């Protein structure tokens, strides 16, 4: 007699044990530490923090180690941990004008107060494999400049003062929280930006790229890209004033885009905005382009039906944890639904064959 497949529990235990062994790899090679990941795979750590929506380099490094370097898996670990954390309150808005910049470039002005600072960028490296690195990764001493004193003003501020760019006055209202309330459409810009800052880098890049190729082209110039640290401050009710509770690294991208105008309004440039945890400039630039494309309605543009203009399409598909979960779930058993399809298709074929025979006779 046939005995149904049993032993799901044992199979799971064995799979987990094997996974742990594979994660460690060859025991003759020293195990690496989460400190090493944090220090030497910092850009992977940054991506995990950004898309995991949790600023903690040590936990991100641990997640990368546990996930065997699968960054989406690591992001998933961070998200699942993050959701269990109690909330003590909200910080004050961070002030990126007071960022201590490691990198600051503008594509729109050759120079501006604060200057252009290349910082630690791959931009002008020739992408030649450095075989020396395989044996010896020690870096030599690098020259250090004195840090700039005082705030680095935003380039956009200069356009703003001339009224050349569409104004974006500060608002007092507290934006909705994507992680605490179900997404509702149409979404406010604040909510869209929340979704985009933790969106999958690849998805955001693809969407942004499509706008450049004509699917809702918005003629973006990087007015400014800045990376550096900002203080996080929190109002403590018992004290009656705000105190600094920490410092985080952010990447901010402001784009200046094609201008608008009408009979009553002289032409003005428009904006796209990206702000992402860590040193994550590909993501921040992509975010700014997608943000700009999604603003077609409020800026009175036409919907040309481009994917990047479709808020519902972008917001419902940009989250890699949702996407990968649903994608991968199709490998779970579907015997029952498949069986019902089998019965149906067999019946339909039988009926069709009978009908064809009758027609032939």
């Amino acid at each position, binding site marked *: 007699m046939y005995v*149904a497949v049993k032993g*799901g529990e044992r199979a799971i235990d064995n799979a987990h044990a094997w996974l742990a062994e594979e994660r460690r790899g060859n025991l003759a090679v020293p195990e690496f530490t989460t400190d090493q990941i944090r220090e030497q795979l910092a850009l992977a750590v940054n991506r995990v923090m950004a898309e995991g929506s949790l600023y903690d380099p040590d936990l991100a490094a641990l997640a990368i180690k546990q996930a065997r370097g699968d960054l989406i898996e690591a992001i998933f670990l961070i998200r699942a941990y993050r*959701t269990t954390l109690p909330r003590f309150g909200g910080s004050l808005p961070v002030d990126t004008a007071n960022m201590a910049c490691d990198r600051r470039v503008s594509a729109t002005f050759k120079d501006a107060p604060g200057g252009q600072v290349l910082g630690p960028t791959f931009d002008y490296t020739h992408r030649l494999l450095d075989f020396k690195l395989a044996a010896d990764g020690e870096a030599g001493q690098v020259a250090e400049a004195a840090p700039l004193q005082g705030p680095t003003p935003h380039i956009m501020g200069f356009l703003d003062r001339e009224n050349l760019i569409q104004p974006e006055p500060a608002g007092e209202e507290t934006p909705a929280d994507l992680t605490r309330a*179900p997404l509702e459409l149409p979404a406010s810009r604040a909510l869209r930006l929340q979704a985009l800052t933790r969106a999958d880098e690849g998805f955001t890049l693809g969407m942004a790229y499509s706008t450049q190729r004509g699917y809702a082209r918005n003629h973006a110039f990087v007015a400014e890209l800045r990376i550096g640290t900002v203080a996080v401050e929190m109002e403590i009710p018992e004290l009656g004033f705000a105190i600094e509770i920490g410092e985080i690294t952010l990447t901010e991208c402001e784009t200046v885009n094609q201008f608008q105008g009408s009979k009553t309004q002289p032409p003005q440039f428009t904006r796209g905005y990206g702000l992402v945890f860590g040193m994550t400039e590909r993501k921040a630039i992509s975010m700014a382009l997608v943000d700009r494309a999604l603003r077609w309605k409020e800026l009175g543009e036409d919907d040309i039906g481009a994917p990047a203009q479709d808020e519902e399409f972008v917001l419902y598909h940009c989250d890699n944890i949702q996407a990968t979960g649903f994608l991968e779930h199709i490998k779970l058993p579907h015997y*029952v639904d498949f069986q019902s399809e*089998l019965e149906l298709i067999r019946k339909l074929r039988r009926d069709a064959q009978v009908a064809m025979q009758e027609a032939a006779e």
Partner: protein
Amino acid sequence: MTEYNFAYLDEQTKRMIRRAILKGLAIPGYQVPFASREMPMPYGWGTGGVQVSAAVLTPDDTLKVIDQGADDTTNAVSIRRFFQRTAGVAVTEKTTEASVIQTRHRIPEQALRADQIIVYQVPIPEPLRFLEPSEVETRKMHALEDYGLMHVKLYEDISQHGAIATAYAYPVKIEGRYVMDPSPIPKFDNPKLEMAAIQLFGAGREQRIYALPPYTKVVSLDFDDYPFQPSKADHCCAICGSTTSYLDELITDDAGGRMFICSDTDYCATRVEDAG
């Protein structure tokens, strides 16, 4: 697992889910949006069902988890273990012993009682989604009770195939008002949707909860001249001999030999025990 709260979720999250469940019960078949949390298992693997179960379970409950009707499929095992660890609840494979049953894709063969709760894992809660991809549009259709699109689809099936070509996740109308997706259960299970137990549906990724109180009127959509027909493989179970249970089909040899056995493993085992 002392570092996590009873049934994993924090109390505020549970309250949010519980409020959504109550509104779902008050408006049978309507999909209540809820702020689904990231769970320690992937979206699409039962996070909605798990959140609903977590919000419903008490320490006195006995939990049964099935996937495709079976207690021993890997994902059912994994979810059962999760609640054993985080809620410390008793578990069972016996349908009659369970107070809460979490399921994927099946309703047990054994009729459920008024003191039982069944929680369905739902991948796509919107019955109109494959006809209209936009949530903004489908929400309007439900608001206006405009289900013309669904009838057109079913009618097109008939004109093309001579029958309604939907075999699972077969749409139903609740109390004459909302069209609802019963989750991807085979249409064989649709008549069981009118039952004595409370039915709760959780879609985690899509952030929706919906519900059917006991004895809620559930009608599978059809036409007068093409009435709804539940169907199953025209065989009996090779293990217990049941002619009325839903069957899985197995391929037994290279020549394409087939065998049919109950998809509900507890139903099948109980019948074998009772006979022996």
